[in-house]
């Protein structure tokens, strides 16, 4: 909106400039929530593998909201139990996967009627543990966590 000397300044025009600009700001990639993926793979892990190969410890670099949990199994057999916890989760993740079914994912936010979103705090250590009856070393399993950031000012 531009005005010229001597023109009539219309209230709706002035209001519209502010409204339009705020609307643009609300949709900027700088402020909308962004998701980052943490992919952790467990290749060739069988029931007899050492505990070290069945565990991953990930220090979180930021405050995240747990948005998605997905598990993919490529080859292998048996059943997996995956647990994820940082020691402060109200509801640690626990999912069961049968090899060969391909891909499973939890409900959005890993939520149900008893729990809603969970915040995973910056600096906490996320421990991802696999318990499996798989016997084939020609196998792979991936745990993917979708971690959502909403306000990042540091």
């Amino acid at each position: 909106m531009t005005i010229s000397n001597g023109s009539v300044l219309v209230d709706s025009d002035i209001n519209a400039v502010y409204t339009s600009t705020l609307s643009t700001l609300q949709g900027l990639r700088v402020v909308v929530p962004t998701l980052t993926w943490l992919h952790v793979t467990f290749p060739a892990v069988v029931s007899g593998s050492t505990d070290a190969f069945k565990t991953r410890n990930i220090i979180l670099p930021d405050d995240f909201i747990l948005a998605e949990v997905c598990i993919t199994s490529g080859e292998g057999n048996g059943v997996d139990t995956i647990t994820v916890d940082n020691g402060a989760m109200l509801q640690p993740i626990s999912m069961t996967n049968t090899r060969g079914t391909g891909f499973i994912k939890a409900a959005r936010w890993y939520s149900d009627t008893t729990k809603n979103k969970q915040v995973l705090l910056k600096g906490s250590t996320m421990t991802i543990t696999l318990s499996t009856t798989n016997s084939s070393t020609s196998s792979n399993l991936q745990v993917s966590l979708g971690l959502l950031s909403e306000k990042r000012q540091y």
Partner: protein
Amino acid sequence: MDVKSVVPNTFYTDELLDPNKVNDNNQYMIDVINDTQSRRYAHSIVTLPYYLGTTAISQADNQATRSYLIPAIDDMYIERMYLDGSLATGAATVVVYNATTGTTAPAGVTNPIFTPTTTSTTLSYLQPIYMAAGSTYRIEITGAAFTTSKLDLIIHFRTDKLNVDGTDHTQFPSIQQFTESDAVSATSFNSNTTAITGAVSVINNYSRALRISAVVFTDFDNATDADTLRASLPRGTTNLMSEESYRMVSVVSMASAGSAAQQIACSISNSTGGSIGILNTHSVSGLTESQATDTTQVTISTSSPNAISDSGFDYRITASNSAATNATKATIWQFLY
């Protein structure tokens, strides 16, 4: 401070234009712009193993097997790194250097970055490493005689949403305050409006929320079609992203030179296996290492075949090998905007 949808003051017909209200609204917009720009960092986590499946890596393995190449397709920082696990035997060091220039990274720092031992522990490296767009960095484990046990490198990446191209696009719009005794000219009124809308336009045009993830495939051959891992990109109307864009760079590392005409393909596709246009093909004949060029940016849109629902968009990350010989590893770097 949330980005509100209304300014403090609304103007009405037949109302005398109060310069204080104009000033308040303009200042509010400046505050919102400043707050918006302060939310400028995006954080990502990547885990990279120094072992193949459960098979150890030793000093006898070639450089491609003992290292990871990290492609910086835009400006980004390794904010910090951790090395979690232990060696089985021997002594090793983990070094970082700019593979494009061959220089130590970060400049002025004496490598090694890590010195893992045979005691299971977590080591940290907290000094940021700046990665300029177009550069490639190598993180390599070396030593006279060593064997790794389970050893994971965890990288924290940080990107600046207002600077992924080497230029800081932060805006500092300057506005004029009006007083009641002013004879406000159209020029000064327009100048304030232009400063505000111009700043927002620049931020809108240049803000890019770059996030980085990676998947590592090991020992895959042409005897299986299951070297596919999947994930899900959430969608919906409840304050999640509308559309995302992907770029991809994959790096293939071979224990020995690839066979004649051998190709390794790395791709991202939709949940039914259909292409969404992201593919790196490596011709590895005679090579032990191959880094793909950056793919073009592909927007995951709301239209078919990438079915969008509140349950999300499921995609596949695939590595396939044309030869029966097992590739050592393929690292698929995904850049999400």
